[in-house]
């Protein structure tokens, strides 16, 4: 479930190659592969296909709706840098709602230790290092949790292949994923992965009590640089509260020349 979003990691090259080999040989060894091995192999292949994008910029609009139909809007610009051998770096700049305009959020994610995160509060001109523990909390009051939109990596889950099934008219793998992060808000996710493009089409989220909490539908995929698939729409529905969030991506630009210098803590004070 990688392409969900924003980024990805890649220091598991050897492992990845081995698994790719495994996938290649899958027809021969299909009987020998356990559901756990097959689930992992699918995740690794999806990960491999999204390597090397280097960097991208995009804008996102979130439309929040509650049960009564009240709406509110969020506009955020996002920049991401792929980091060789570690988690990606990302910078989010908030344009709407107006009272948080200019607020910026910098993440240096890591594969083997907690992420580093800083928040910039423009009214105080203050850069605050913040705790990165809160992965399960709502992002900007939406139905997306921080862990739903942050950097996705193979090691953050363990896997179990369930079955093949059609989703939106496409042949898909259905894989169950169990978060390895102990403070995750979920016991498991079930992901439908397009067999041709290795991208997630639908995700079901199960809360800490293992009750079905949310469903995410990812549509309007477009391919960039002839390789990288990104969903144009992500629609999250919370079945327990009736609230929904429609996240729409636009203005994707890949390989814009971003570098480490664009993701320093200081940059928070000058981005608009």
């Amino acid at each position, binding site marked *: 479930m990688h392409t969900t979003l924003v980024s990805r990691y890649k220091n598991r090259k050897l492992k990845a190659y081995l698994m790719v080999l495994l996938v290649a040989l899958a027809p021969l060894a299909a009987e020998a592969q356990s559901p756990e091995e097959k689930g992992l192999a699918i995740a690794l292949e999806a990960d491999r296909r999204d390597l090397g994008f280097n960097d991208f910029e995009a804008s996102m609009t979130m439309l929040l709706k509650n049960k009564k139909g009240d709406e509110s809007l969020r506009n955020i610009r996002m920049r991401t840098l792929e980091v060789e051998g570690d988690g990606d770096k990302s910078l989010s700049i908030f344009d709407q709602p107006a009272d948080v*305009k200019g607020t910026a959020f910098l993440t240096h994610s890591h594969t083997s230790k*907690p992420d580093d995160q800083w928040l910039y509060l423009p009214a105080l001109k203050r850069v605050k290092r913040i705790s990165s*523990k809160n992965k399960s909390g709502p992002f900007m*009051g939406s139905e997306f949790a921080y862990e739903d939109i942050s950097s996705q990596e193979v090691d953050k889950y363990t896997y179990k292949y369930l079955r093949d099934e059609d989703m939106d008219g496409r042949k898909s793998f259905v894989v169950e994923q169990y978060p390895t992060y102990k403070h995750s808000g979920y016991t498991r996710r079930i992901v439908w992965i397009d067999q041709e493009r290795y991208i997630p089409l639908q995700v079901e989220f199960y809360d800490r009590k293992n009750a079905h909490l949310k469903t995410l539908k990812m549509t309007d995929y477009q391919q960039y*640089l002839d390789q990288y698939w990104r969903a144009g729409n992500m629609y999250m529905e919370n079945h327990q509260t009736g609230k929904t969030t429609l996240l729409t991506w636009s203005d994707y630009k890949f390989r814009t*020349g971003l*570098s480490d210098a664009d993701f*320093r803590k*200081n940059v928070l004070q*000058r981005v608009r």
Partner: protein
Amino acid sequence: MPGAAYAALLLLCFSGSALALDSYARSARENGLWIVVRGDTLFSIARRLLPDNRPAHARIRAALVDLNPDAFGTSAGELRTGAALRLPDELHLERPDAAAGQAEPGAGAALQPPPNAASTSTAAQPQRPSTDPQAAPPQPALVPQVAAQTSVAEVEAIDESSLQTRLSGNVSARYAHFTQLPRFDTQPDNNSAVIGEVEYYIEAESGSSFTFRPYVRAELQDGGDTVFDIREAMYLTFGDEWELRAGIGKVFWGVTESVHLVDIINQTDFLEDVDREEKLGQPMVQASLLRDWGTLEFFLLPYFRVRQLPDSNDRPSFGIDVDNDAAQFESKDAENHLDAALRYSQTFDEVDLGLSYFNGTSRDPRLFLNQNGNALIPFYPLMEQVGLDVQYTSEAWLWKLEAIYRQDDIQSYSAAAGGFEYTFVGIFDSAHDLGAIGEYLYDERGTEATTPFQEDILIGLRWALNDEQSSEALFGVIADLGDGGQSISLEASRRLGDSFKLNLDARSFINTENDPQLDLFSRDDFVRVELGYFF
């Protein structure tokens, strides 16, 4: 120290000077054509065409793709070797000999490719058009002339569209009700004000920007003033490893919640709020060096802002007028003394560290009774301050420390504040977060201190609902361990719709009898409501 800072600033300006265009890139820009050799990529070409305007690279790359659909292989990243790329008109450079009418004697030599460029591209050399002006084919020479006529209009059009502007701001109305009778007859029962702040931001293609942020506060109670200030009027330009700012601005240093000891650049807008978080705009030149070993910032502060202290009819008040206009300065240059500051900051994994030094006029005045005994006169000494701020972040824990050592001609002292913030995430199976804050405050001066915080503790709770309205509340008690005086505060806020925000603040001062600093506020408990409109 100001001398040293100035020298360092100059040095920094030079180290950030423009990179020279290499000779091939120059001739390509003159001719409007780039011949692709092995190893060229859109990235490397954009870099060489505009070595010192990195923010424009993405646009140049996009333009190259648009103008040269046939130059690419299977994907946009793959350039065909030998392809002649048409360059966007905005890159067009006048040929030096065309401009001068006659080639200057040295011009040919300057156009020779540098030795390193020649050696790395030997294999592809034959594909390059010669950079020798004598051998330049006649036909490309016509191209720049035609282009030159159209380029003026186009460059203007690009300039027009490449300036990004943004306007934002807020207008708010507030009403504060004091819950007790005032200490002095001259003081009001309530304060109310209308506050407006607008930010105009303009950014050039290069990324350089100018921000202008005027502020006005009209106090509506009897005897209230109208205050106008320029909070920001700042020019900013930067490169990968440096930033330069000049104008009026605001800088914040520090990590703790109870007091801001290290934060020294800006004067406090004391009349705005007793919490000392609102600041006056400070004239400055700030040069920053951003390197892997850390960030080094130099500040030159050419003008000093006097703290506007309350009159006897303000609330709170000293009970006697303060003659701000008669303020005295230790420096013979008064407000015009050139202050300087230096700060080093760096992140070491979980640790964010800052070390700072300040040399100049103290932002905190000492107050003296005037000769007639009917007003206080502020005196601003010269001082030096060394500061340390550090935060250790580990999962839900934030550990914080700020410490200063300050010295002036009257006294020297140290002060510190440190503690923790721990966040309980998703309490009671909800999306709410609850943060517990504990800090200890120390001031070596004890009861001689000019602040009420000599040996105090802060206990606070921060409650964030994480809802669509970003509702949150912060409750805190600062208690003096020596004399028992306490300051209790509550700050809560919630967004209404997409554009409004409601704030509720309350403050109370209790057990202040033995704390002369805090006792000044003892009757000034208040509840305040503020509604702001943001755009």
